[in-house]
């Protein structure tokens, strides 16, 4: 059994080497398909990063009346924190609001002068609330609109943001569903192209397969080397595709900062590289083996 295995592996490698051009052509096509497929995966994760970055910037603010006592505000904060939809709340007191306002208008003399002339702080305290999901904002907004809070809250920013939130919600839905459909669709196309490429490679060996049967080769012994060749096609094209995609990402990562400031695209990629590499290899090798198995079967019927 061991002798058989070592012969199968040997013939797999020998066949791969001797049919050099055919192997190279098959690998080239599988490589292109895997690069296309890998780029789609990366594009979909970039889109996700982009959307979650925008999502992070969205919040809903409740502005309190200037005479609202601080302990009431903190009570409301506590009540909000008990909601599952709420991810985080930032409390900005009237003093802090003034500090921030002054800092923002440092250069503007008229604003500073106007503030000095006012003896009281005109700014309201506020709660900046971030929700876990985009859909949760409407829940939080309606909670803030409760009768109990009307005496303290003067304004909720949700009504201004509602359009942006709704639009983002729609885009996110489209990207998630569309991305999934695209990945399934491209996977199918990739699988079909790879299957047909390998089928053609084996088609050119159909006579040999028949001869092997006629001299007494068992199906296992005949099929084995082709499975090894299929595996080699998948392995090499998988490695090459990850190599070229890594290069692309390395040079493209700085441009990602234009869309998502502060993101380290290359770091994000390398952190996920091993998973991506395994996925490309598994996809390439798996398809290589399955395609070879099916393609050889047809010629083993003698």
């Amino acid at each position, binding site marked *: 059994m061991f*002798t*058989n295995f070592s*012969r199968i592996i040997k013939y797999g490698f020998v*066949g791969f080497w*001797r*049919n050099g051009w055919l192997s190279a052509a098959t690998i080239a096509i599988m490589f292109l398909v895997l690069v296309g497929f890998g780029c789609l995966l990366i594009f979909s994760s970039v889109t996700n990063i982009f959307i979650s970055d925008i999502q992070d910037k969205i919040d809903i603010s409740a502005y309190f009346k200037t005479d609202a006592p601080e302990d009431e505000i903190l009570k409301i904060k506590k009540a909000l924190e008990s909601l599952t939809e709420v991810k985080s709340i930032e409390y900005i007191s009237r003093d802090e609001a003034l500090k921030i306002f002054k800092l923002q208008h440092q250069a503007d003399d008229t604003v500073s002068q106007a503030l000095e002339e006012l003896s009281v702080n005109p700014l309201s305290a506020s709660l900046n609330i971030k929700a876990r999901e985009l859909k949760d904002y409407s829940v939080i907004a309606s909670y803030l609109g409760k009768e109990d809070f009307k005496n303290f809250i003067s304004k909720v920013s949700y009504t201004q943001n509602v359009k942006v939130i709704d639009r983002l919600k729609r885009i996110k839905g489209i990207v998630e569903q569309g991305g999934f459909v695209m990945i399934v669709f491209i996977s199918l196309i990739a699988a079909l192209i790879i299957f047909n490429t390998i089928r053609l490679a084996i088609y050119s060996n159909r*006579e*040999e397969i*028949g*001869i*092997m*049967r*006629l*001299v*007494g*080769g*068992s*199906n296992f*012994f005949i099929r084995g080397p082709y499975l090894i060749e299929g595996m080699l096609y998948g392995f090499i094209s998988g490695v090459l595709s990850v190599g070229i995609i890594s290069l692309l990402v390395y040079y493209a990562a700085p441009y990602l900062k234009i869309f998502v400031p502060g993101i380290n695209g290359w770091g994000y990629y390398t952190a996920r590289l091993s998973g991506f590499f395994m996925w490309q290899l598994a996809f390439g090798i798996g398809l290589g083996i399955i395609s070879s198995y099916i393609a050889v079967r047809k010629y083993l*019927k*003698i």
Partner: protein
Amino acid sequence: MIIFQNVSKIYKNNSHETIALDDATFHVKPQEFVSLVGKSGAGKSTVIKLLIGEDMPTKGKVVIGSYNVNKLKPIEMPYLRRKIGVIFQDFKLLNDKTAYENVAFAMEVAGRTPKEIMEFTPQALDMVGLKEKASNFPRELSGGEKQRVAIARAMINHPDVLVADEPTGNLDPVNSADIIKLLIKINELGTTVILATHNKDIVDNLNRRVISLEDGKVIRDEERGKYILV
């Protein structure tokens, strides 16, 4: 012992039926040299295909030694084929393997050890006079040389039967004579030889048993026969 018992083979193509073999019965004793003769389409190749299990009979029984060929499952077929050496008109060598590897391949599929392969393969190539060309690929060999590689491959597992389907069909008279000499030698060493041919000279010179086929029927079976054209 090879037994063909009332064997018929009918090929069906849409509504059209072609009778390739019609109720053929004959036996071949061990170590016999039998020539199957007849015009093209007489049924010679069908007999060969049924012998090596490339096709199954429509009716009747084909037995080779302990194997009932028409009852064999596809998975059992390789074991029968390792007991029969076959050579073809078009040689059927593996083009991406050298002469040595082509011969060794038949041993490898039979699960022989590397030691046996290294010992017997050069011997077999020597027997057919191709020791020097062991590392040549089929494209680098002449027709006669290819057929001799095929014979070395067919004989490497010491089969009980050697089946030759028009082995000289693609060869010139000198090479043909060499191949037939090899077949006689193989037969004298104890292997049953079944030779399908339509070469009158070869059959007449052999002076061995001749089974004549016509339109799928056995029309003549003579111990020391000649090729008789009807």
